[in-house]
C-alpha cells in the first residue's frame, strides 16, 4: 500500500467513512505512528479553522505529558509493593542463631583492633631527633620491657602438670624448676634493667612524656603512656621482683 493510499485511508477514517475491517487496522497504525497522529491533528485543525472555531493545539501535548507522568507514578506505586519479596530473595539471610553470634563477633573484632591500636600507639618510638644511634636504641628496651612479664610454658615432656604450675605460682617465688632433661620448666625474659642500653636518652620515657602531655594526643594514648611509664619506673626501682620463676 502506498503512502498516499494510507493517508487516504486516514482521511476517510477521520470522517468515519472507512469500512469496519480497515478501521481497526488504521486505528492501530494511528496509535503507533506519531507522524500519522500529527497529520490527524492537522485534519482537526483544518476543520476548526474552516468553521471559525477555537484553536487549541497546545492541549494535546500537555495531556500526553500528564498521562506519561501518571503512568510513571502508577508504575512507581506498583513497584514498592513488589519490592519486599524480591529484596528478601536477593538478600542473603543469616540463620537465627547466627545473628547474635555475628554481633558478638563484630564487637570482639572491634575490641581486638582497639587493644592492638592502644599497644601500638603506646609503643611507638619518638621521631629520631639526634641521629640513627638514638633511633636504634629506642626499639630494644621497649620490646624487652613488654615481654618482661611473659612466661612461656616449657616443653610438653615436662613432668610438672599445669595444675602444679598454677599451685607453684600461687605459693610465690620458688627455686627454678627443671625437667628431667635439664630444660627449665618455664622461660623468663631477663630483667628490664639488664637489657637497657646503658648510654643515650630514654626514648620510651620520652615518648611516654610526649604522649601523656601532648595537647593533640588522644585520651586513650595519654592513659596508656602514663601507665607504661609507671610500670617501667617501678621495674627500674625493684628489678628483683620481675623474676617469677
Amino acid at each position, binding site marked *: 500500500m502506498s503512502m498516499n493510499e494510507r493517508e487516504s485511508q486516514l482521511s476517510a477514517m477521520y470522517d468515519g467513512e472507512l469500512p469496519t475491517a480497515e478501521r481497526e487496522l488504521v486505528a492501530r497504525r494511528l*496509535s503507533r505512528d506519531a507522524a500519522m497522529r500529527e497529520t490527524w491533528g492537522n485534519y482537526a485543525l*483544518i476543520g476548526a479553522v474552516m468553521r471559525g472555531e477555537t484553536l487549541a493545539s497546545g492541549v494535546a501535548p500537555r495531556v500526553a505529558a500528564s498521562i506519561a507522568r501518571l503512568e510513571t507514578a502508577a508504575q512507581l506505586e506498583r513497584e514498592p509493593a513488589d519490592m519486599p519479596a524480591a529484596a528478601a530473595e536477593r538478600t542473603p539471610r543469616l540463620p537465627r542463631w547466627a545473628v547474635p553470634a555475628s554481633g558478638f563477633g563484630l564487637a570482639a573484632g572491634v575490641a581486638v583492633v582497639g587493644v592492638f591500636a592502644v599497644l601500638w600507639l603506646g609503643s611507638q618510638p619518638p621521631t629520631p631527633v639526634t641521629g640513627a644511634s638514638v633511633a636504634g636504641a629506642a626499639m630494644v628496651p621497649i620490646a624487652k620491657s613488654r615481654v618482661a612479664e611473659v612466661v612461656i610454658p616449657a616443653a610438653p615432656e615436662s613432668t610438672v602438670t599445669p595444675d602444679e604450675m598454677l599451685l607453684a605460682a600461687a605459693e610465690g617465688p620458688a627455686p627454678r624448676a627443671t625437667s628431667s632433661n635439664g630444660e627449665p620448666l618455664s622461660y623468663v625474659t631477663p630483667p628490664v634493667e639488664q637489657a637497657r642500653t646503658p648510654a643515650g636518652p630514654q626514648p620510651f620515657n620520652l615518648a611516654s612524656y610526649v604522649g601523656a602531655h601532648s595537647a593533640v594526643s588522644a585520651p586513650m594514648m595519654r592513659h596508656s603512656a602514663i601507665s607504661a611509664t609507671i610500670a617501667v619506673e617501678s621495674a627500674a626501682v625493684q628489678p628483683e621482683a620481675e623474676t617469677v620463676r
Partner: protein
Amino acid sequence: MSADDSDLSLVQLAQRGDSGAFDALVRRYQHKVVKLVMRYVRDAAEAEDIAQEAFIKAYRALPRFRGDSAFYTWLYRIAINTAKNTLAARGRSPIEYDLDGPDGEESHEMQARMKDTATPEALALTEEIRNTVTAAIDRLPGDLRTAIQLRELEGLSYEEIAARMQCPVGTVRSRIFRAREAIDARLREVFDGGLGRGEVIG
C-alpha cells in the same frame, strides 16, 4: 458509518492501555473541548487548563466507558462538569452566557473574549495558522474545495456529497483527501511541523 465508529476503534485501543490511541482522540477533540469550556470561563489559558483536566479525567474514567453513547458526548459531559467544579472550587459562578444561542453568535463572542485574554504571541500564531489554511483552501481546485467545504462546514456524509456533486463516493473520498493533503502540506511548510507543540489559542 460515522465518526463515532472511528472513535470507538480508538477508544477500545485506549481502554487496553494504548496512550497513542488516546492521543489521537485528544488531537481530534481538543479544539471542540476548549470551545466548550470557554462558555464557562473568561480566560483562554484557564480554558486550556480545564480542557486538559477534562481529558485527564476522561483517560482515567475510560475503563468505565461502555460505548452506550458517542465518545464525544461522554467527553462533553466530563468537560462541562470539570468546568463547573473548577469554578465552584474557586468560589466563582459561570459567566453569563446564552447557551441556547446560535453557534455563530456563540463563536463570535467567545473569539472576542479569547482575543482579550490570549497572549500576543498566541494570537499572532493563531492568526498565522488561520491565514495559512484559508490561503491554502483558496488555492485548491474548485472540486476539491467544494468537497471539503461540504464535509467540514455542512457535515455531509460522503454519500450525500457524492449525490450533491454527482460523482462516485470514491471520488469524493479522493477529493477530500487531496484537499486535506494540500492544506496539511502548506501548514508543514509554513510551520515546519511545529503545530501542536506550543500554546495556540484564539
